[in-house]
């Protein structure tokens, strides 16, 4: 107890995490990633992955349709901008709530099944949302073009207080315009809150119950324990995280497109989580950062940039390296991503965080033969995660 009801160790983790996020514009500079848009994406997808991990990491239920919540969060946020106000607070609240509502519906139906049957149910719902949003629901979603905020939208609340939009509408947080670094810090604040909530859930009796469901649901049921409400709650919380991530995408950039709901988007968050480490606190964020980094930075390397990078070498060596590296960057960034997935999962089982953990523990074991055998397996891992 103490600081925000966290144990001393968690409080330290929280502080370090918050500091790392807030100082990201500085320490990401050497990686070429310290520009607002990418930082925003890191925070937003980090939040998305944290939320996904609450469901997948704790309960083991693999949803393949989380993009639906991201999408509906986005659409709701744009509509909130259009109808009510450019202030981001209503957008975030409504977006998160509608996503939660959709999650109740989808979760209630899908959670009747387990394993891959559950995955396909969620996938089916998300794909239906996507296909309809792209075509039949165009009056609401504006289809392929994407839903945008226009100057002559009603914005009832804004007009009531006499705020008239000039130029292109931009999200607004009580006078601070939500673009560039202010927008990043808004997302970062949400990420930190989201991380805190996730930490609390991981440490709570509720989290423990979820983990118990993961390890053996049948046993839980036999003891007369009704798992469904807990699962549904986890599903809805996770859906609301996704919804909030969706609204943040709109807050930083007032536009919502249907492809946000496609199965590839659902798959992306699954990959992020697995890549970083399922069921670990920090893993999903790491995974999200890594994938978004590749998508934005590696895809931008063209031959000219490569020649710049290797220009310190003699010409023939420079050309040699450019030829070697070229297939992996620019239009080949997918190749790097695919290779990365394979390498990480082969050499670091359990994802980045788990993998590092094991390496770290093995070394520790060598140093002192103090085995951590007395610890409960999962609990031990979770503790170790927190240390990272």
């Amino acid at each position, binding site marked *: 107890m103490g600081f925000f009801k966290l144990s001393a160790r968690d409080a330290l983790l929280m502080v370090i995490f918050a500091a790392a996020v807030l100082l990201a514009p500085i320490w990401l500079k050497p990686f070429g990633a310290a520009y607002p848009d990418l930082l925003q*994406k890191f925070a937003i997808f980090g939040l998305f992955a944290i939320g996904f991990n609450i469901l997948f990491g704790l309960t083991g239920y693999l949803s393949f349709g989380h993009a639906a919540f991201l999408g509906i969060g986005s659409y709701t946020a744009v509509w909130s901008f259009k109808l009510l106000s450019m202030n981001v607070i209503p957008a975030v609240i409504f977006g998160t709530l509608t996503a939660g509502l959709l999650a109740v519906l989808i979760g209630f139906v899908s959670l009747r099944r387990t394993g891959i049957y559950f995955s396909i149910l969620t996938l089916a719902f998300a794909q239906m949302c996507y296909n309809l949003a792209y075509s039949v629901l165009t009056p609401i979603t504006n289809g392929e073009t994407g839903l945008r905020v226009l100057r002559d939208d009603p914005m009832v609340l804004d007009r009531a207080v006499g705020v008239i939009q000039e130029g292109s509408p931009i999200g607004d947080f009580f006078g601070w315009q939500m673009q560039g670094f202010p927008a990043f*810090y808004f997302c970062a604040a949400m990420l930190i809150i989201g991380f805190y909530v996730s930490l609390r859930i991981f440490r709570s009796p509720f989290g423990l119950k979820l983990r118990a469901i993961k390890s053996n649901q049948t046993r839980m049921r036999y003891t007369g324990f009704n798992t469904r409400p807990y699962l549904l709650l986890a599903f809805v919380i996770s859906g609301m995280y996704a919804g909030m991530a969706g609204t943040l995408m709109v807050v930083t950039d007032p536009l919502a497109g249907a492809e946000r709901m496609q199965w590839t988007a659902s798959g992306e968050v699954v990959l992020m989580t697995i890549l970083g480490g399922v069921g670990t606190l920090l893993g999903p964020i790491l995974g999200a950062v890594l994938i978004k980094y590749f998508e934005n930075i590696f895809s931008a390397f063209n031959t000219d940039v490569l020649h710049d990078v290797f220009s310190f070498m003699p010409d023939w060596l420079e050309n040699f390296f450019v030829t070697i590296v070229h297939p992996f960057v620019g239009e080949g960034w997918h190749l790097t991503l695919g290779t990365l997935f394979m390498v990480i999962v082969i050499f670091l089982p359990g994802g980045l965080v788990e993998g590092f953990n094991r390496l770290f523990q093995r070394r520790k074991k060598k140093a002192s033969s103090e085995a951590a055998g007395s610890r409960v397996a999962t609990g031990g891992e979770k503790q170790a995660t927190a240390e990272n």
Partner: protein
Amino acid sequence: MTKTTITRRGVLKSSAALGLAGAAPMIFVRKAQAFVNDPGDAGSVTLGFNVPQTGAYADEGADELRAYQLAVKHLNGEGDGGMLNTMQPSNLKGNGILGKKVEFTTGDTQTKSDAARASAKRMIEKDGAIMITGGSSSGVAIAVQSLCQEAGVIFMAGLTHSNDTTGKDRRKYGFRHFFNTEMSGAALGPVLESSFGNDRTAYHLTADYTWGWSQEGSIKKYTEALGWQTNAAVRTPLGAGDFSQYITPVLNSGADVLVLNHYGKDMVNSLTQAVQFGLRDKQVNGKDFQIVVPLFSRLMAQGAGENIKGIYGSTNWNWSLQDAGSQAFVKSFGAEYGNPPSQAAHTCYVQTLLYANAVETAGTFDPCGVIEALEGFKFDGMGNGPTEYRAADHQCFKDVLVVQGKENPASQFDLLEVVQVTPRAQVEYSPTMEGYEGDLGTCAA
């Protein structure tokens, strides 16, 4: 609204300050420049080439990128100069733009609005791009165009065919050289009339998204004006792959023309399958059954192989044109890359030159000046005959090509035959025509 601009140094300073101040993100560097990404005294200027590098349009994107790189070369005075030599009037000197060497940054749109905007933002925020160009779909073009309006950066659209790009979604900072569905319809109408007559019944298969609808609307409008009937207009899901279940109903619908409002892979698949179902060998109402593909792309047509032979469509430009501009471009492109440019490559190349020329004319990189120079700009020698950038909607008006799949191609690139060059007057429409009205907005500075 006040525009807040961020310099790289400013970013560093403000972020350092922010980092120290923790969660008090209120410090901001203001008005460091007159406009976004002002190159100032720098010796070079950066353009942002945002093209699809992955996904179904990757080859088209690669061709666009080749065209951009060629344009940069020519602007910097390397190579044979290409259309720099044929463009009229031209202020281009072949010494960069306003004496600054042209550099570029590239990005992958993935043919997704979100990815395209993220990529464009990276170019603006990180790489200091003064202009963004590219794209291979209307959804992406419209999304990036409105982003550029917000950011205060010029957007020179690449391949985008939907009316909306310069119709209801037109923007002050956005310019389109490519033609649109309205022009396709207006150009195709007379050719369809002379080839197939006035008594026809059309069946539309339409990609179920905004571009598809736009094209379906335009073709309907012009064919119905000829006296054609529209039997049905069926929407098909994007990327359906197998279109058989949509083609079978055509067989006994009583229609004698099938209009495929599909593009890219969808077009390749639906056309291949329609031919497989024997539609082209069919006789309906005593007439030969016909297929029309209103928007052709040579790169994609390659995928359909034999099936495009004899099929009518429209295109923005084709490399077989004999005017000086086209020849100069094809020559330098062919010499550089060993194959002729696609229409996507052409429009991207031209857009880059037009932007550079506008900057030279305006004497400044300030977008407002550039916009002024582009609006109403009349030019020639760029492959499409006399062309005008209409000020009211930033749409280029020029002749439109009606093409037909060639029966006896001389080489693997020789797929399309130009059957008619529809004069500009015939495809021109009012910028305030119903369904096309839009609001350009203003130049912010």
